[in-house]
């Protein structure tokens, strides 16, 4: 069942067009990656889906609902959240407060407190840091907070923009363990990632964007075997 | 668009026979005669209308800005003055029309307006009921443009020091104020010599306050009178308690206080909080504000035995008619600002009448000469002045003199000095 559908989307910043005619799909329960070089338009795509940029053409629907017509702040309430590039945790809010803010779409204080408990289960390393200001945490810890914050509202689909950026390899491994666990428990994931092998190790399908257009798509295995991907992104 | 104009209104072409043409000629002649008579009659009419034509004099005053109360009171006085003058036949049969210009209390605007009024407006004379700063700039321009400027309200003596020939200061100057304050102190000290008294000077630090404050200081120093402290403050100060405390620390018997209403009210409340109860001699619009008992507990005014050196008080006999008219129109007593502007307008009237007698066309020179010739006895004004007579060397009003009014029960002001116009007795120091 298609959860997220992007069709023929054109988008950019002012007169600068970044995306030209992008289409993709994510089915419920899938983990899908979007790969491509810097400046290809990967972040622009996620920002457009999240309602931060209005597309100049095309349609985006989530769970049957038109996202383009929806005000950006309502989209998380519909069950679609994003963990943006560079994490964007609220620096002077504590870890706990950051997570609670993520719970904004939930119906009340009790629901938020309950959801908080669930997050501590997924990220036990954050429990000792619960009252620390999020800005004082390490990069890896901040990433956990950012993901935890996104998960608070029990979303149906989580989009992650470059989660491994700026993190040490061991931290990236830990992070992807968590992501694997989430995928196994049925969470739908749309992942923008520069680290291609790591991404392909997690997802079932992927798209490759270059210069604002989708140039390639297929299963993880197919892409691993693709000459283009091997030359351009795997250095083979 | 349909063509407009004369072609449509033209008389139709006459295609009649000769007989009709002859008839037409007579008709045309008659028409000419009637037209001629009408023209002759209309010249008489024009002459009449010209006689009714108002005398327009611009009046610059701060209707808005930080000293807007001066402008608003002056405007009210101008309305009463205009009505009174025009009801009595106007000036040489012509109504007076004062055209009020808002200077916002800003000197650059006063100067700009002065320039506009004299250049474009070709005003033969300008009346200014404005603060010293604005009047100063306007006077400078008046001098260079050779247009007479009549100053109704500004007290600064610095303008007089420049020796302008086109500046006529109806208002008394800070020298007069200081002189009156000192003369009053000599009266109020009673049997104890003034040199034995402890007197403090307190004034707001703008040119208005500082001008008179410094002159009074010089006068007192020259006469061997002790000044136990001289304290200045900024009008916009929100916190006058520390300032009043400084004055209190010098333990004066009498405080001579020059300020505006806002700071005087704040200072008096602070004095009460400090339990500081000297005798107070005020100078200027603050201590003399008729609204003082509404703004401060009258008991405080009474406690401080406030008397005020001022240029106007509505209770003097001379001002009775003005006071009545003002009360009737605005339901309030006229303030000093209103009184002085009213008086200036009547002086203006006298000068205009004199100039018109010399020649029906008002020019800047005829107005200047008219001002120089003026010698109006004080009884004929609403002021406390001895007379209105301008010094040709600098424009100073040689007959200017201040009065002192004392607050009674903290509720009303009674003129107590000089004896020639006093209505009550001075407040004696203990």
């Amino acid at each position, binding site marked *: 069942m298609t959860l997220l559908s992007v069709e023929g989307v054109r988008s950019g910043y002012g007169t600068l067009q970044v995306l030209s005619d992008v289409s993709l799909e994510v089915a419920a329960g899938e983990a899908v990656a979007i790969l491509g070089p810097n400046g290809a338009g990967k972040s622009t795509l996620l920002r457009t889906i999240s309602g931060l940029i209005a597309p100049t053409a095309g349609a985006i629907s989530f769970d049957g609902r038109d996202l383009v017509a929806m005000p950006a702040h309502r989209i998380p309430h519909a069950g679609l959240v994003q963990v943006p590039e560079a994490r964007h945790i609220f620096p002077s809010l504590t870890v706990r407060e950051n997570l609670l*803010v993520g719970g904004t779409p939930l119906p009340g204080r009790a629901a938020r407190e309950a959801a908080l408990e669930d997050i501590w289960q997924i990220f036990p390393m954050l429990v000792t840091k619960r009252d620390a200001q999020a800005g004082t945490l390490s990069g890896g810890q901040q990433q956990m907070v950012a993901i935890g914050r996104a998960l608070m509202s029990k979303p149906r689909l989580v989009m992650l923009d470059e989660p491994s950026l700026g993190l040490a390899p061991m931290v990236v491994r830990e992070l992807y363990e968590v992501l694997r666990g989430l995928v196994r428990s049925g969470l739908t994931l749309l992942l923008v990632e520069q680290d291609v092998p790591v991404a392909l190790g997690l997802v079932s399908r992927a798209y490759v964007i270059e210069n604002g257009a989708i140039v390639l798509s297929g299963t993880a295995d197919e892409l691993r075997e693709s000459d283009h991907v091997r030359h351009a992104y795997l250095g083979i | 668009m349909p063509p407009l104009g004369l072609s449509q209104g033209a008389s139709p072409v006459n295609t009649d026979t000769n007989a009709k043409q002859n008839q037409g000629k007579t008709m045309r002649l008659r028409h000419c005669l009637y037209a001629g008579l009408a023209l002759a009659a209309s010249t008489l009419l024009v002459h009449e209308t010209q006689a009714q034509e108002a005398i327009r004099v611009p009046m610059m005053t701060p209707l*808005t800005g930080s000293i807007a109360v001066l402008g608003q009171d002056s405007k009210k006085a101008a309305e009463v003055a205009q009505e009174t003058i025009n009801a009595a036949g106007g000036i040489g049969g012509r109504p007076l029309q004062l055209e009020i210009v808002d200077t916002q209390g800003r000197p650059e605007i006063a100067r700009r307006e002065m320039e506009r009024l004299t250049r474009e407006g070709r005003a033969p004379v300008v009346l200014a009921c404005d603060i010293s700063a604005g009047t100063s700039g306007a006077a400078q321009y008046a001098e260079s443009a050779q247009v007479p400027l009549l100053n109704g309200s500004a007290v600064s003596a610095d303008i007089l020091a420049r020796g302008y020939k086109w500046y006529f200061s109806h208002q008394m100057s800070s020298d007069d104020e200081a002189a009156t304050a000192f003369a009053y102190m000599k009266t109020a000290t009673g049997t104890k010599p003034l040199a034995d008294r402890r007197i403090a000077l307190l004034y707001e630090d703008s040119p208005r306050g500082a001008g008179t404050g410094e002159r009074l200081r010089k006068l007192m120093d020259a006469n061997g009178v002790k000044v136990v402290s001289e304290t200045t403050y900024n009008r*916009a*100060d929100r916190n006058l308690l520390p300032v009043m405390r400084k004055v209190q620390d010098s333990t004066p018997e009498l405080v001579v206080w020059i300020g505006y209403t806002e700071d005087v*009210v*704040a200072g008096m409340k602070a004095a*009460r909080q400090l*339990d500081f109860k000297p005798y107070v001699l005020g100078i200027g619009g603050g201590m003399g504000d008729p609204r003082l008992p509404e703004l401060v507990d009258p008991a405080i005014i009474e406690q401080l035995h406030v008397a005020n050196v001022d240029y106007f008080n509505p209770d003097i006999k001379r001002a009775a008619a003005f006071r009545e008219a003002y009360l009737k129109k605005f339901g309030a007593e006229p303030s000093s600002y209103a009184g002085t502007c009213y008086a200036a307008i009547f002086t203006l009237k006298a000068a205009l009448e004199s100039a018109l007698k010399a020649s029906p066309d008002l020019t800047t020179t005829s107005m200047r000469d008219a001002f120089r010739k003026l010698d109006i006895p004080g009884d004929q004004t609403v002021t406390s002045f001895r007379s209105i007579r301008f010094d040709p060397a600098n424009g100073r009003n040689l007959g200017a003199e201040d009065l002192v009014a004392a607050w009674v029960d903290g509720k009303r002001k009674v003129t107590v000095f000089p004896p020639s116009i006093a209505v009550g007795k001075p407040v004696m120091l203990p």
Partner: protein
Amino acid sequence: MSFATLLQAVVSGLLLGGIYALVAMSLALVFGVMRVLNFAHGDLLMAGMYGIVVLNQAFGINPYAAIVLVAPVLALIGIAVYFVLIRRVLGAGPLMQAQVTLGLSFAIQSTALLVFGADLLNVRTSLDGAAFRVAGVVIGTPELIGFLISIVVCAALTWFILSTEFGRRLRAVAQDPTMAILCGIPVRSVQMMVFVGCTALLAVPAGCLMAFSQLTPTAGIQYSLLSLMVVVLGGLGDLRGAFVGGLLIGIVEAVTSALFNNPAAPGIIYLVFGLALLARPRGLFGRGSEA
């Protein structure tokens, strides 16, 4: 000048500074949440002060009680100002914001002059001139009450921002409005509510001030300038800084006018302000601003 007088100045200045702190905090909050520096903040305070005067002179209500009645009126004015003016300059450059809010400042001042005239207005209460002495320092009763009320409200405001759900969202919006949207927070609504709330809050300093101070149509500009100065000194958007800055400016104001017997005295505040910024360009507490 004696030590006693200096101490008096410090205490008097501190009392008034408490009220400045509250005024500045509300301005800092608006800036923090929507990056708009409202040059008409003092004029909105003045509007509140006129409201207090009207209620007192027409119905005999004392200024402290009148706060409760003036607050909703200020809230309505805040709503109007937000929708007509502020919303349009959110995200616009500081020059545009300054122009628009300065225009509002003049409009309020002119309206006040038109409706109330140029005359000085104040409120007469039974506390006029009431004071008591502590260790040789005279403390005015209405000034002390104003100080205490302001401090309590500052504390309540701080508690609200730190401990409630709305306060948390407010802080999120202040730190990262885009991320706040991604968390599902209705950022524009939050900004509107903060603006309206901060405007309504001005009823408190309005009442406290009218209990001992005077009012003319130019009071607004004076308070606008003062609160802007405090907010910049404290570090744009930093509430702690606004609070401390308010107290500091109150003290500096009183001490310089007591110390210096000369017309430059009020200019000294600006000098101190300028020097402080030179030393710490981001303000005492600020992390700087993008403005």
